[in-house]
């Protein structure tokens, strides 16, 4: 074979290798998040939620809520991916500047069992999970708690994980029920923010 033919062969093979599409990713559709799960976060887009600080200051949180559909797991060659819906809730206050966000994700395991994880973050530094029908994370649950003069039932006391070891002032416990959402933010220095109804 002449040198020219060899060069042509190499160029042709290289072209074919780069031109061939990678095998399509096998995508499983996990479907939408059930209303029962969405209701575990009782927050509505554009609504304002009021809290009262232990010093008496009223702190209003505005809510942004939206659902998105995303595909993940197809980044690797020949992988199996999944399409699922994500629910995002953001609660933001101007003063003091607070950022609380929740993210609900759905997955289905090989036994066809559906799993939901509702993860939360406060100030981008403390994280926690909201209990779901499948997982209560062993949180303490109190049948009735009186907060700011009102009784609330079936209240979870959710400890946060502090991801900045230098912090000594942070939200360390969240009081939560599925009717009202966050009922109290208790700080590590014993300040608190109570739901204000």
């Amino acid at each position, binding site marked *: 074979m002449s040198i020219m033919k060899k060069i042509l062969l190499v160029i042709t093979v290289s072209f074919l290798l780069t031109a061939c599409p990678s095998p399509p990713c096998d995508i499983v559709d996990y479907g939408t998040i059930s209303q029962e799960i969405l209701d575990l976060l009782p927050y509505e887009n554009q609504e304002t939620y009021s809290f009262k*600080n*232990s*010093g*008496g*200051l009223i702190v209003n949180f505005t809510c942004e809520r939206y659902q998105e559909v995303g595909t993940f797991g197809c980044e690797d060659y020949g992988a199996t991916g999944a399409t699922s819906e994500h629910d995002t809730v953001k609660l933001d206050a*101007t*003063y*003091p*500047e*607070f*950022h609380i966000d929740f993210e609900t994700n759905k997955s289905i395991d090989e036994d066809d069992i559906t799993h939901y994880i509702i993860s939360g973050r406060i*100030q981008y530094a403390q994280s926690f999970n909201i209990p779901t029908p499948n997982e209560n994370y062993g949180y303490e649950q109190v049948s009735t708690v009186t907060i700011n003069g009102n009784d609330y039932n079936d209240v979870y006391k959710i400890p946060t994980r502090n991801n*900045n070891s*230098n*912090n*000594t*002032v*942070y939200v360390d416990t969240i009081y939560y029920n599925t009717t009202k959402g966050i009922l109290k933010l208790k*700080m590590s*220095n014993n*300040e608190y923010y109570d739901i204000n109804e």
Partner: protein
Amino acid sequence: MNIMISMNRLASFALVFSVLFLVISCGDDDLPQNPIDPSSMEWFFQENVGANFIMHDDNGIANEFILEESIGANSQNGYQTNGLDADLSKINYYYQDFSDTYFSGLKLGVRSSYGSYGDTFTISINEVDFAIDLNEALVTSVHFESTYLAYSETDEGYENNEEPIYSTVTFLENALIDGVNYDEVMHIQYNDFIASNTDYTIKEIYLAKQFGLIQYVYNNGVVCHRN
């Protein structure tokens, strides 16, 4: 003839090596240093990275500031005249960067003096940035969100380019903050971009030597002080 060519080549190589040697050996380290005045460093938080201090507002809300970074640096500064470096010197910098519970974004800094100017102290908090000439007791630039005012440094001193800066800095012998008497206090009064200010724009800042930030006051009158 061959000997002549070799000699010429040898001379050329020697010249190139000499120039390279001079270029390499005349590094930044030979430049005169402009050190930061030790008294300028006293306006900073005098602790190591990871240390914290707490401030409380009128509602009892604690805001914890943690020193995340403490950086010293220097850079070459100067200008060229007729192809020669003139007034070329090293400017020194020092910065402190803090995180805090409620995202005030506190940053402190100082740049050593050059020419006839004093050390420039900088502070950023709640999206307001100030630069202050410590010798002149003058606010030389103000930056709020996307708006900016700055004086130019000229041979005749500072000149305002467009609008004057109304923010002021004064140095107090002492100040009583939440029952504590602080000696040598810097008081910054923010008087610019008034139309853009909100209730929680910071309008006054107090710093004390050896402590750094000791108090700030919001536009709505809420005071946040050191504990």
